[in-house]
């Protein structure tokens, strides 16, 4: 029997507001342990939360960018549970009246378009971080992250494969980056996902029993967790077992999941409206203001690249998948006017080198106008395409202006005919056998001789001139 995987995601994204959600502490990542804290975010007796207005604005932005409706009236609730990283022993979140609801994001997998429903987006506060000291018996808590604002984006169970999940997450990440509400740095924990997954025989309408895997913090881990957990569930069903509704922990190193707690053991969070906070009201005027402040979103930008720059669909998708990359592309195009060439350099050499060096797009070391300059050097015939590839590598490694690199290393194309013919004569003198071969009709010998000239000139000689002069010389 064939099985279908059904997945819903809960994505937590840290908002990039300057200060925390209920106090004025900085949200900056890192910092000495427990230095980005105050009586409020460490839950001292007597303190009160005051909602950061920016958090509401950012969450509404995220909602509008993912086609959500915005609640005119929403409230904040306490989610009660004990854990050392939660200083008040409750998390201020939103329960039954979230800020945004009923939205969607479009994705594309293997050229098939699909709409993924967004159930809701709500705001809440992040917890601190437990640090387990291996040499001591106890653990320590760092509250720097406590009170950093989060949005939780809950999808409908509309996803059917790891590929769809990947596409959804990439689109979501791109949207959040575009609207500048989150830096989405997974390695810093600013984007994390809980995966709700069930399987069912293909064609069956009812959902199977689902499990939840919490706090997956890389795309790769999410994909592997989906593959591992769906295989486990199918195996259980095939061998006559039943899936238990439970929370599982995905061990990405071992590639297996472990049961953490069953539905019966699940926390009763005793949600109730936080009496320390007033209802959140987003009136039509404010909503419109936020709407008008939204930038061009990835989908629109992709369409524009296809029509404005005549880029292939695939290239446009890749370039717009990251705001940083798309901005880099447009900056280079603005200077060089050759969109196709810029796109090719980015799609080819740039992304390849980033991948080889395991660097993020945010880490592109040189400014976009260097790429424009490089393309200009080729267009003006100052350097050859082959040399350009070498200049590119150096430009990447040393963050140097390509013009300077070319000058310093004397990489300009040699188009002085007298200089080239001198080298040709020298090459011919050293290769009498090849001359003979050529004269006997062996075309390969010509290519060999061209190569020798190129070698002598370290690739800088204009190949057209070599061809012309060599031919003249041999045919004498």
């Amino acid at each position, binding site marked *: 029997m064939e099985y279908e995987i059904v997945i819903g995601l809960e994505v937590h994204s840290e908002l990039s507001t300057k200060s925390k959600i209920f106090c004025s502490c900085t949200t900056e990542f890192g910092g000495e342990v427990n230095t980005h804290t105050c009586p409020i975010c460490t*839950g001292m007796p007597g303190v009160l939360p*005051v909602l950061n207005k920016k958090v509401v604005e950012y969450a509404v932005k995220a909602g509008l960018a993912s086609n959500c409706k915005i609640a005119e009236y929403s409230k904040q609730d306490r989610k009660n549970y004990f854990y050392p990283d939660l200083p008040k022993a409750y998390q201020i979140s939103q329960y039954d009246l979230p800020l945004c609801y009923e939205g969607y994001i479009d994705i594309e997998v293997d050229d098939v378009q699909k709409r993924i429903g967004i159930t809701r987006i709500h705001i809440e506060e992040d917890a601190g971080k437990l640090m387990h000291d291996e040499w001591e018996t106890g653990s320590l808590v760092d509250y720097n992250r406590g009170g950093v604002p989060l949005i939780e984006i809950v999808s409908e169970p509309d996803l059917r494969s790891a590929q769809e999940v990947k596409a959804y997450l990439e689109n979501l990440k791109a949207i959040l980056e575009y609207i500048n509400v989150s830096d989405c740095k997974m390695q810093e924990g600013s984007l994390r996902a809980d995966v709700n997954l069930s399987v069912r025989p293909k064609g069956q309408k009812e959902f199977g029993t689902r499990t939840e895997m919490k706090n997956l913090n890389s795309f790769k881990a999410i994909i592997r967790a989906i593959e591992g957990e769906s295989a486990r569930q199918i195996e259980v069903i095939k061998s006559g077992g039943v899936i238990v509704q439970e929370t599982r922990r995905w061990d990405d190193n071992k590639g297996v999941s472990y049961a953490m707690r069953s539905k019966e053991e699940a926390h009763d969070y005793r949600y*109730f409206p936080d009496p320390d906070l007033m209802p959140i009201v987003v009136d039509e005027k404010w909503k419109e203001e936020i709407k008008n402040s939204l930038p061009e979103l990835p989908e629109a930008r992709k369409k524009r690249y296809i029509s404005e720059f005549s880029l292939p669909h695939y290239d446009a998708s890749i370039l717009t998948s990251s705001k940083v990359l798309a901005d880099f592309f447009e900056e280079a195009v603005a200077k060089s006017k050759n969109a196709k060439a810029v796109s090719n350099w980015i799609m080819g050499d740039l992304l390849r080198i980033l991948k080889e060096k395991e660097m993020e797009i945010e880490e592109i070391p040189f400014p976009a106008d260097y790429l424009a300059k490089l393309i200009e050097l080729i267009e003006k015939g100052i350097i050859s395409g082959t040399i350009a590839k070498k200049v590119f590598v150096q430009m990447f490694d040393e963050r140097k202006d390509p013009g300077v690199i070319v000058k310093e290393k004397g990489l300009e194309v040699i188009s002085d005919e007298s200089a080239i013919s001198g080298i040709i004569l020298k090459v011919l003198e050293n290769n009498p056998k090849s001359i003979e071969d050529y004269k006997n009709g062996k075309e390969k010998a010509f290519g060999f001789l061209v190569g020798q000239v190129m070698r002598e000139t370290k690739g800088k000689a204009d190949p057209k001139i070599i061809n012309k002069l060599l031919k003249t010389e041999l045919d004498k």
Partner: protein
Amino acid sequence: MELYDLSVHEMSDLIKSKKISSVELTQVILDRIKKVDGEIGSYITVLEESAIKRAREVQDKIDKGETNSPLAGIPVAFKDNICTEGIKTTCASKMLDNFIPPYNATVSHKLFLEDTVLVGKLNMDEFAMGGSTENSFHKLTKNPWDTKRVPGGSSGGAAASVAAGLAAFALGSDTGGSIRQPASFCGVVGMKPTYGAVSRYGLVAFASSLDQIGPISKNVSDCALILNAITGYDLNDSTSANVNYPDYTKSLQNDVKGLKIGIPKEYITQGINDEVKKAVLDGVKVLENLGAKCEEFSLPITEYAIPAYYLISSAEASSNLARYDGIKYGFRAEKFTDLSDLYRQTRSEGFGTEVKRRIMLGTYALSSGYYDEYYNKALQVRTLIKKGFSDAFEKYDAVLGPTAPTTAYKIGEKSEDPLEMYLGDIYTASVNIAGLPGLSIPCGMDSNNLPIGMQIIGKPFDESTLLRIGYTFEKNTEFHKNRAKI
């Protein structure tokens, strides 16, 4: 009359006219504390050295003419659930016995700016849960009028200290009657302001939607003066009200002519001590004779106020007190096996019986499956109680009745029966539920020479009318001049 028996106004006049310095006055209060607080037990912390130091600084400002606060140099004390930077704030709990706040409550800061002199921190029921101050981890506080009796609670230390001349005035907190009832038991004036009128920032939360800080003083004029200093919008408290706060001393007028005052029948029929009832009705007559129009009316929802109050306050408390887990500050059990055992042992040992009872009650009320039946139902009752009062205020300028059904009872008399104790909140709790201001003033003495309190309830942010009625009553009666003989 001794110096410590004077009102804030009188003390202030002496200081302003240089007849006495703040240092001398503070020393008088400290000496008085040394002499009688061993018996009364109103203080948890006495700031002997720092109070004198502070009084010197303030006196220096007074001498240089750098302050014109009517409270300058006045020795004051706070209930021990109001945070004071660098000064222990224990909530009368083992859980916070070693807790020194790194910040000041907004009211602490405001009274500091008014150049008052903080003398110490006052005893209370643990986390303000109780009506007799018997639930303190530290000690019992005794009623200055009869030391075999309770001072009321939870602000028992605050009321007893003012009644015994151990502080010129005190700040208490009131969640279901915790300022007004002890004020009534100790024969002093206690005001619970409108919810949102005084910032809760730095008040250790018991029930966030009900808690309110307020003054306990020797008379209504002092109450107005203190309200001027502590009310106001505070950006640090989202529930603080951004409205215009009047000069409350302007409402100190000896005139109630034409004021319409309603007396809820339900407040003077069942469960009320006869002497209390008589004193309150005599009080009503005094006001009537001065031209107020008083009549009885029905406030039918009264009987549901107590259950609604205990559900809402305990539900909020169960969440508010969850942070005392032994991780970050305060008490931590010495022996535990793992994390959940650390929580269990710490909370079992750190909290007293009454606090644990309410945490359990509140946790239950919020649990899935019971939420609608208890917590939600209580919120519905809350809406009805609010409605009952707002209907009444269509007809009346103020509502008047007893503060508590009895006078001060004997220590130990009710401590074994929490339900009996809870019924003592019958006239006060609904005022918190509706978020209204309530003023308790002395209106008589019972046959045991114990003070009786009368409560005046007002429209939201209409403290002025309450002060006006209270002031007029004082000007025409002598009860506020009674002092406990201790």
